[in-house]
């Protein structure tokens, strides 16, 4: 029996405003508990929420970037539930009229195929506080610093058909919010997290299966693992003749499985109604155009430009534009190396540099080798001071903090030998030392050419200019 997976995601992006969505308390991360929770965030009687303009602008920014309708008059609603980290007894959110309407995001899969994923809506809401269940003499500790932090909840259509597509979508959205500068994307701190709605149906059927919702996934890997586990689980249930129960589930990263949340925690009856403390939010075209004017070059546009302008492949262009920092780094190196060298720069950024960054789990922003330093190194390949192979050795030394390219080349004596006389001398020696191979080569064993090149490079410690070695060897043999 063939099954098809259907996935929709609800992504929560914490907006990087300086103050909260409805109060003037700071949103800075890591403050002492409750020092950034004011009377409004605490839900004290008699206080009123006042909406943060920046949060609205950021929501509109995302809306424009995903080609969505901006709702001219949107409404805030109360979502009612009881939990100690929600002091008011309701979360201010948007229900029937969200600020951002229908849009879409194109994702690219590993095989180069593109798919369009529909975005149903995106709405503004406030985050809740944090409950700390460690031992406080059998009580729970509440920190309300996070309460009132602006969130944008981005709800997708059930358009994804595999965990791979869901991860590609979440990654693309993650890259987009960072490009737009509306969310820092820090998943460890919970600034960017998602809930996944997962169901399966028999291949070829129209009707969706019963879905479950997996809450609070804060890494791409957890999203992938949680979906994979959940799909297997649902298929087992259905093939065993059972029925999937619509419920909320939690992913346990240690066990790699999802489990049902007890129904007590669920209480899915939120009794939404318009919040009488807030007037409708009117967004006029002037405001929208102001936001539009502040949009940066978006990932897809950048990718297209990288392909057209630098002649990069679709794969290279999309890898390099996966984050704004990487794209900026690449362009800074190209600026120094010359746009004719774009392909070489791309190879270095995606190869040596990314490899070294991944090895140490570092971000490109704190690479020990700056774009300027890498550009200077590549310039030395260009002017024939060193070969590409030696350059990798120089790069390692630069990474280890042994100085800039010229310093390393000088200190290690890596300068390429381009003196024809000197190379010829080595070639003559190699030929004299290997009469047997010479005979075989001359009697037609062409493959031995590589052997001679190798010997010459070995004798010169890899420093002979490869092009010259080839040329001179051909002549001499």
């Amino acid at each position, binding site marked *: 029996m063939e099954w098809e997976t259907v996935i929709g995601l609800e992504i929560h992006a914490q907006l990087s405003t*300086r*103050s909260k969505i409805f109060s003037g308390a700071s949103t800075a991360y890591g403050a002492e508990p409750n020092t950034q929770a004011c009377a409004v965030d605490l839900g004290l009687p008699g206080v009123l929420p006042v909406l943060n303009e920046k949060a609205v602008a950021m929501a509109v920014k995302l809306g424009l970037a995903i080609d969505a309708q901006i709702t001219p008059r949107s409404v805030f609603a109360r979502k009612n539930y009881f939990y100690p980290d929600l002091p008011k007894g309701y979360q201010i959110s948007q229900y029937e009229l969200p600020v951002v309407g229908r849009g879409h995001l194109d994702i690219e899969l590993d095989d180069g195929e593109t798919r369009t994923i529909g975005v149903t809506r995106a709405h503004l809401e406030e985050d809740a506080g944090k409950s700390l269940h460690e031992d406080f003499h059998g009580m729970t500790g509440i920190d309300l610093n996070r309460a009132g932090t602006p969130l944008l909840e981005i709800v997708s259509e059930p358009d994804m058909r595999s965990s791979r597509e869901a991860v590609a979508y979440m990654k693309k959205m993650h890259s987009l919010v960072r490009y737009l500068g509306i969310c820092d994307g820090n998943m460890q701190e919970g600034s960017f997290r998602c809930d996944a709605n997962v169901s399966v149906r028999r291949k070829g059927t129209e009707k969706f299966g019963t879905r479950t919702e997996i809450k609070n996934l804060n890494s791409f890997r957890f999203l992938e693992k949680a979906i994979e586990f959940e799909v297997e689980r649902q298929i087992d249930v259905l093939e065993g003749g059972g029925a999937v129960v619509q419920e909320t589930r939690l992913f346990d990263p240690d066990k790699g499985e999802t489990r049902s949340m007890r129904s007590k925690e669920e209480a899915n009856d939120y009794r939404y109604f318009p919040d*009488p403390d807030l*007037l409708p939010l009117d967004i006029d075209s002037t405001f929208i155009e102001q936001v539009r004017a502040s949009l940066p070059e978006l990932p897809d546009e950048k990718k297209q430009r990288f392909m057209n302008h630098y002649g990069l492949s679709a794969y290279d262009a999309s890898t390099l534009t996966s984050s704004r920092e990487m794209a900026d780094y690449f362009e800074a190196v190209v600026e120094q190396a010359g746009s004719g060298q774009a392909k070489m720069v791309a190879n270095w950024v995606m190869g040596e540099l990314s490899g070294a960054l991944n090895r140490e789990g570092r971000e490109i922003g704190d690479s020990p080798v700056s774009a300027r330093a890498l550009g200077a190194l590549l310039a030395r390949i260009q002017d024939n001071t060193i070969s590409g192979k030696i350059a990798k050795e120089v790069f390692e030394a630069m990474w280890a903090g042994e100085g800039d390219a010229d310093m390393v080349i000088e200190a290690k004596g890596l300068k390429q030998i381009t003196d024809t006389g000197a190379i010829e001398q080595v070639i003559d020696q190699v030929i004299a030392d290997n009469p047997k191979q010479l005979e075989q080569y001359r009697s037609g064993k062409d493959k031995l050419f590589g052997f001679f090149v190798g010997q010459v490079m070995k004798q010169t410690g890899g420093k002979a200019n490869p092009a010259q070695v080839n040329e001179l060897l051909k002549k001499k043999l």
Partner: protein
Amino acid sequence: MSLSLDEVRKIAHLARLSVQEEDLQGYARNLSDILGLVQQMDGVDTRGVTPMAHPLDASQRLRVDEPTETDQRDHFQANAPAVESGLYLVPKVIE
């Protein structure tokens, strides 16, 4: 429209209200009467009327994104029944 006693119990639970068993009947009747009042409006033709989100015909004013609040934790926590290490303490919410 008339609410059952179970519905009243559920509504009370959602609102965390403790309702005495002997009062349920009365609440059911009162709430049903309110719903009946609202139901009268179903008879009005509202096609072409924009749903009202707020009784005031005005729109939300926006605030500049600047932190204006200062730390008043000690002041606020003086009202709390239990605090520790800057946290508000509440009865344990998970086992």
